[in-house]
């Protein structure tokens, strides 16, 4: 790592930038101009969110608060848990812990810095991780391993067998930093009694692990509050989903990111409920006026991302969709698979429900919810098995009336790369043009954004979509 990078605490750098950006809209014009001078490299992405209206502004505040929680955790005698987006932070909030979700923290750095998270990613390699490991973890983890972040107290992941590169990154971090580490496991099928029971039993082990290391018992009243909040959030998300199914949709592409990033950071917390309320209100208004969510004012195409989005500098990917008039109908990260959602009608066993009637039911609810988080839900087994990746994507493509499907990940996504070509073939057979992006969602060095954009333009032109 370059010596000058080592001079700065990563968490504080990010927190400072996000705090400044979140305050921009409240200022006078002169203050705004001055604030932008303090965040020159962040101006592009700040403008993107601010231009997205009250939801975008609130989202910046949320991200700043997320960092604030991390930075003040020790002062408040709260442990920090390094975890993955595939694992809901809800249980951590219920147990008074502070989540530090690696992929979200890497994405923020990749979005705001021109050099992205390159130095931190490379640092992981310097200390022994393979360079083919996933950039989504390597970004924030590099800062973490370099001692440039608040100390992580515990590591929890739930990705072995689902995303081995992800699980390996957490195993490496726990070993390198000599911290307690727990891995949830998932069977290769979903929805049958045996799997459901496995989810609960394994989750009980997780709770026991946390109780042991924190010295605090799970407070079921608090878990009940968190689950009740999730219930509200799911209802709001369902309304967003309904509007996302409309043609044209009143939901802008950036909202898709905010729906899942908010959930990965603040699931079960009132902050995320508020974000969803603002997005619903904003989208409803557009729907009532018959205005598409795209700033271009016209929806030319409906795109379904069958995996993740692209997160490098300045929200380029989302701006690209805006300028081309392409509606983003979500990705594997967007939908929660709550029971009753239209897309779960064809595979009800893949969904979860919430029941707060007893401690046992609460534990069951959060275990089943966690088992429906992205990737662990539908990448756990063969892609063409019931309820897995192909089923999920085809159902969503039909429900959301997608015109085409795009795969984007990182070279480290070996569990999906291993099946993406037959998966794409099967989608094509169902009539969906499919494009496989060869870039890295978090690292522009693998393929520059300019090259990625050209490939996207080529796909839309050659397949006569635009």
């Amino acid at each position, binding site marked *: 790592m370059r010596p000058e990078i080592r001079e700065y605490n990563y968490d504080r750098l990010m927190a400072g930038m996000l705090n400044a950006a979140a305050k921009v809209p409240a200022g006078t014009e002169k203050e705004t101009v001055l604030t932008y001078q303090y965040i020159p490299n962040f101006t592009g992405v700040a403008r993107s969110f601010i231009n997205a209206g009250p939801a975008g502004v609130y989202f910046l505040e949320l991200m700043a608060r997320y960092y604030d929680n991390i930075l003040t955790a020790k002062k408040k005698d709260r442990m920090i848990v390094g975890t993955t987006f595939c694992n809901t932070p809800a249980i951590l909030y219920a147990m008074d812990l502070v989540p530090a979700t690696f992929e979200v923290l890497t994405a923020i750095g990749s979005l705001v810095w021109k050099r992205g998270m390159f130095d931190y990613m490379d640092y992981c390699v310097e200390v022994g991780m393979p360079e083919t490991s996933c950039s989504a973890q390597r970004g924030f983890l590099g800062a973490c391993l370099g001692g440039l972040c608040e100390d992580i107290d515990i590591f929890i992941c739930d990705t072995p067998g689902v995303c081995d590169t992800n699980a390996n990154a957490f195993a490496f971090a726990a070993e390198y930093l000599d911290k307690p580490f727990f891995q949830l496991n998932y069977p290769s099928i979903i929805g049958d009694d045996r799997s459901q029971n496995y989810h609960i039993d394994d989750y009980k082990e997780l709770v026991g692990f946390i109780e042991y290391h924190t010295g605090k018992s799970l407070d079921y009243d608090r878990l009940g509050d968190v689950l009740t909040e999730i219930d509200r959030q799911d209802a709001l998300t369902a309304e967003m989903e309904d509007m996302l199914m409309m043609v044209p949709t009143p939901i802008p592409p950036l909202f898709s990111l905010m729906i899942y990033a908010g959930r990965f950071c603040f699931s079960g917390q009132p902050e995320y409920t508020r974000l969803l309320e603002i997005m619903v209100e904003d989208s409803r208004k557009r729907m009532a006026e018959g205005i598409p969510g795209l700033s271009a004012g016209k929806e030319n195409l409906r795109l379904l991302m069958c995996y993740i989005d692209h997160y490098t500098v300045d929200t380029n990917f989302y701006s690209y969709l805006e300028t081309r008039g392409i509606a983003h109908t979500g990705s594997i990260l967007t939908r929660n698979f709550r029971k009753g959602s239209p897309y779960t009608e064809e595979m009800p066993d893949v969904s979860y429900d919430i029941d707060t009637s007893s401690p046992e039911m609460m534990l069951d609810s959060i275990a089943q919810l966690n088992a429906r988080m992205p990737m662990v839900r539908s990448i756990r087994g063969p892609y063409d098995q019931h309820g897995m990746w192909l089923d999920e994507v085809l159902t969503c493509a039909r429900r959301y009336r997608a015109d085409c499907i795009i795969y984007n990940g990182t070279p480290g996504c070996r569990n999906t790369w291993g099946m993406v070509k037959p998966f794409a*073939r099967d989608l*094509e057979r169902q009539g969906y*043009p499919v494009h*496989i992006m*060869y870039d890295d969602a978090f690292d522009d060095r693998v393929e520059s954004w300019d090259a990625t954009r050209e490939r996207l333009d*080529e796909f839309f*032109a*050659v*397949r*006569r979509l635009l």
Partner: protein
Amino acid sequence: MIVAGCDIGSLSAKAVIMEDDTILAHDLMRAGVRPSESASRVMEAVLEKAGMSMEDVVFIVGTGYGKEQIPFANAVESEISCHAKGAYHLMPSARMVVDIGGQDAKATRLDDGGNVARYIYNDKCASGTGRFLEVMAEALEIPLDEMGATGALSTQKLLISNQCVIFAETEVVSLVNEGRETADIVNALHHALARRAASLAKSIEVAREVVMTGGVAKNSGVFNALAKALNVPVLAIDGIDPQIVGALGAALYARERASIPQTGKNREAFHAAGNS
């Protein structure tokens, strides 16, 4: 109506001039560092061959990796679309095009109307491309255009990996040091490259009528190895250099688009670049 297609690839520049269904002239040359200069040079050469000037050309479509830099193009098209169009024009029975160019390899499946149904690029390094052969020709100190004939003399089967140009070159050096025959090494290289291209094609389902385009199609060793790796006959393009199929496709697009009133931009840009 006279139209032109100009294909500026990473290693070569190609141009075709057409009048209705007839190819009046074509030319190809090594591409320089600047795509705009390569485009002007190849265009000037093909115009000279056709005995024409830029004023005679109604519409020009550019393609290839340098397409955006062609100063006189009225429009640009993806090389995927151009190779598909050119191949289908020459062989209407074609349902798959395997194009191995200088820096990439592409497989394209066509529908019955000649439209692109699916396509795929090489997803790793340059190991399945023309550059792979260039590097190996240099390592073996034999001219690139003699590789096909050299490989045909092979008597012993060798195996060379195809995932990385650098690693493959290391293998070649080792084989040379072991005293292996050059013909056997070249033959193994042809098969290595063909296997990479075939795996691409197979990932989008191989159609029965496969046409090979691009500069590497001129190498009979790779051509035959590809047919073997795909396990289907690969059709040879008769009477035309397979390397200009992309430019031909661009010219065909130019013909389609010529009905759109042109601005004269192509002529002005061509003359502004100092051409006659």
